[in-house]
């Protein structure tokens, strides 16, 4: 963690909470949680509302699909912390490790339905190039995604283009496999609130 305040600048109540979480999970508190709990009124609390709605609000995309979008965006941003967390979460949500691995290895030939494959390609371009144009959107719509599905996918990309940048700017420690699995279970049970 690059800023000491994010490691140990929290209020006494939050420090106690972290001690309880650490004792219960027998894992270090994820550094994203440390960020969200530091001066939470400034960023953590309002960001959690956006992220929970994008990832768990009512949508024609499944939770697994949205976790896969989060993994793909994170992959383009090369954010190791988030790639690990959302690969684990989408894998658990689909109940299919091979599918997620195949999408991340070769997105153009991803073994998913055409609307999702086209949407993932658009999100990857948006993340890589910072913009997309009407032609890119027409391709996604022609592949069968509805405008509402596109909007929902853009909400996911917004949330993770924020979190990816912060994870790397503040140098979050990348959790090990056991911690990632616990995080995936937690995110599927409780969401992002």
């Amino acid at each position, binding site marked *: 963690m690059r*800023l000491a305040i994010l490691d140990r600048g929290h209020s006494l109540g939050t420090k106690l909470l972290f001690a309880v979480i650490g004792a219960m999970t027998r894992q270090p508190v994820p550094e994203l949680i440390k960020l969200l709990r530091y001066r939470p009124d400034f960023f953590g609390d309002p960001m959690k509302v956006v992220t929970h709605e994008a990832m768990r609000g009512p*949508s024609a995309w499944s939770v697994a699909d949205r976790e896969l979008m989060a993994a793909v965006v994170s992959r383009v941003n090369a954010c190791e912390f988030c790639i690990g967390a959302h690969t684990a979460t989408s894998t658990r949500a689909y109940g299919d490790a091979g599918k997620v691995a195949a999408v991340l290895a070769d997105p153009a030939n991803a073994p998913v339905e055409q609307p999702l494959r086209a949407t993932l390609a658009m999100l990857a371009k948006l993340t890589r190039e910072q913009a*997309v144009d*009407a032609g890119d*959107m027409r391709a996604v*719509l022609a592949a069968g995604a509805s405008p509402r599905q596109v909007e929902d996918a853009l909400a996911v990309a917004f949330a993770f283009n924020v979190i990816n*940048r*912060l*994870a*790397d700017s503040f140098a979050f420690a990348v959790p090990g496999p056991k911690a990632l699995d616990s995080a995936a279970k937690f995110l599927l049970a409780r969401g992002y609130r």
Partner: protein
Amino acid sequence: MTDIVASRAALTARLVDGDGTTPREQRQAAFAGARLAGPLDALLDKVRLAATRVTDADVAAAKAAGLSEDQLFELVIAAAVGQATTQYESARAALAAATAGD
């Protein structure tokens, strides 16, 4: 469909218009991607476009120029949310153009 209109507006309003340890104008500039003085400018450019390349030295240089950790916390977050907002608005405009006339 999911609805992040109100929650995204609340996030932005808190970051750029609310109280903080940095002046509002500086947070607004960080959010908007405007140029800022000193080593902060290079740091926030990396946050926006190459966050994996941010180094301890970038943060140390910004601190040496007089910024506190709380100020860096605010400005890095404003830059990250601002860049994601630029992307998001580009994509929503593209979608509106693609569906115009439907």
